[in-house]
């Protein structure tokens, strides 16, 4: 079953995990806040699982969802 993703970022081979020496790939991740979860697709290291949250995403979408949840 296709799951709904709230947000997708494809690193397009431009990001590299320095620890594992491999490129980050588009992978499944999940944001959690105050007992609420949101499935997303973000750049993820296929080896160590490092999930990258770029600045624009943190200050944009993530921040606005945070604000909305905080006022629930």
């Amino acid at each position, binding site marked *: 079953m296709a799951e709904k993703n709230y947000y997708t970022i494809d690193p397009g081979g431009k*990001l590299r995990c320095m*620890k594992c020496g491999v490129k980050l790939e588009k992978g499944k991740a999940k*944001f959690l806040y105050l007992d609420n979860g949101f499935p997303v697709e973000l750049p993820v290291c296929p080896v*160590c*699982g490092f999930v990258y*949250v770029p*600045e624009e995403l*943190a200050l944009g979408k993530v921040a606005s969802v945070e*604000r909305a949840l905080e*006022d629930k």
Partner: protein
Amino acid sequence: MAQIQERGSTHVYKVNKISKEEMEQMVARCVYEHPPFCSAACPLKLDTRAFLEAAAAGNFKKALQLYEKIAPFPLVLAMGCEAPCEGKCRLCEIGEGVAIRAVEEAVTRFGQAQKLGGVFRTKKKKTAAIFGSGLFPLFLAGEIEKKAYPLTVFCEEADLESFLRRGTGFLDETAFELEYRRLKAKDIRFVFGCTLTRDFMEERRASFDVLCASHELTSALYPEAACIPELMYCEAEKLVSGPAAGILDAAFGAKKAALTVDRLAQNLDPRNTRGQEGPVESQLYTDLSGAGALTRVPMYGAGYTEEEAIREAGRCIRCQCEECLKSCAYLAHYKKHPGLLSKEIYNNTQIIMGDHQLNKPMNSCALCGQCTVVCPNGFDMARVCHEARRNMVSTDKMPLAPHEFALLDMLFSNGDAFLARPQPGYGKCRYVFFPGCQAAAIAPETVRAAYLDLCERLPGGVALMLGCCGAICDWAGRTELQEQTKEFLGRELSKLGDPVVIAGCPMCKKELASHEGLQLVGIWDLLLEIGLPVGGRGLARPAALHDSCGARGDEKTQAAIREIAKRLGCTLTDTEFSGDRSPCCGYGGLAAYANREVARELTEKCLERSDAPYISYCMACRDRFARQSRESRHILELVYGTDAGAPPDISEKRFNRLTLKNELLRELWQEEPREMNLDYTLNYTDEARRIMDERMILTDDVIAVLDCVRKTGECIQDEDGLLVARRRVGNATFWVKFTREGDGSYLVHRAWSHRMTVVKREG
């Protein structure tokens, strides 16, 4: 590292109920929604203020629309009204009240009437009949027609013109012509030339749902009838009937009668759900200082010309209470008077499920108490917002995010940066100096100078306590944390022998006053007592004194500061918003954390009253004014000849507190502080510094991230070759974008954070 528990879940479905009575009592204090005195006196409730405003603007069309709402035959009313409003006009107290009736007459004469008739309206099923003629039947016919009941008028007159003539002899021909056209356009059936007898009327009872009659007919044909004046109804006779005399009486009577007709037509008790009728008492407050011309525009003819009416209407000062909105930038920002805003904020606390849209306004009030002083009724908005915050904290519905930084800062002040030591050479001390967390953060040198001076000149030993008084958790509504802080400070004070606390900040003094049995004195009072130290100097230029909201209602402190400034040779300017009426700098109530924009507007409001340099006696004020590029000095800086200079950023504020503590420990108590030295070099680009301050990211947070990379090697490289690492610290994840320089040091380019956690998802 100090941490505050984030609330567990948004799925909390309980609220802490507040009593409706308390809320209503509170809300009722605000008279903003009270009508102006003229409207209050008008039984027909003309919105006189809006009416005169439109007339003054020359918009007679709009003015007439407002007037037609209360009068189906506006000229008849305007030309004959006894105008009780005029005697109640506030301007009567200082001159002549507005000639409201004359303006009404001009408006009805020259204004462009609504399209007569024309509009198709669905008629109701129930029907009404009116017997007789005169002012009351005329007005009642207009009112019933407006309510869309099919209406028949039975009169003795032979035609419409004679019907209208009854009781309207005061109309001139032009006016009569205008009203005749109005009447003709109405959807009313007339039966002329009737011989009105009791039998005639009773015979028609079967054909109509409600019968109405003029007062003359009722008293002649039904002499036993008793008319209930509130309802205009003779209950036994089932007859709606009018009053005897007076134009306004007839108009008001017709309004009440029409409502009775409406209720009867629906088979309802005419006593119920009528709302408030007739003139009311108003407690509206109006500042009369803005009044212009105090005498009426003279009338040369029988009535005002258009131009004269415009001028007369322009004399109305549009009575309205906006004392608080004029002085508080927070209220001005939300453009809501406290009565309404409190109601919304109270209701916000009672939302069980869904969005709490008033959280931000609730958290943006500076809790400064200015409104209570400027409001003629002492409205206490601070209490409303403060109680609402506590209420929401108590049920775990309060978001932590807006206040977390400030709360952590407090924990830092009372943790890593906390210091409590007796004066060297003393076991217990007579005094303890408590400069306040902001003083140590913003002007550490001033704190040091003040402490050394007090040690030298006061007998019995002066201990030092660097920490936070607890105002921060108090403002945040975190009562539990407030209690803990109180206990903590109490324990530390008792270790020092429960000395007299010398508060360096009026806000601390106010907060500490809640400690039972604590002896407190402001450093300002003490300095006046023992004399100012040598070396202090006032400002060369005249300066504006900004009173701290911590000293509101504390005349003694306000006076002491002025006296110190005078002794230092300062020339002070006081303005309307000084002393108890002083606005908050924007730091109070944690406004600056919850709503930067409002906080900035609060600061600007303070600075608006003078272009001179500002002298304050709370470090937070000093800091916020300096951040707005105003020359800003704390009175203690002047007393001790120190200059704290440019305002520090958030990390420097922490650094200053820690450094002050460590230096004093070394110098005065010969203790070697535990210092955490980095074994690597960390630099920041200017841009990084700027965004960190804006995003409230501390150098400590950045260090935590870099420590993590150095230990685990976990980081990524972006398309520009910059490295990015992250670490969860407390309730937030911090991200740092950096480079490793040739010399092995780190250069931080950017930093950001988010509160959500992010994890990899399987499958």
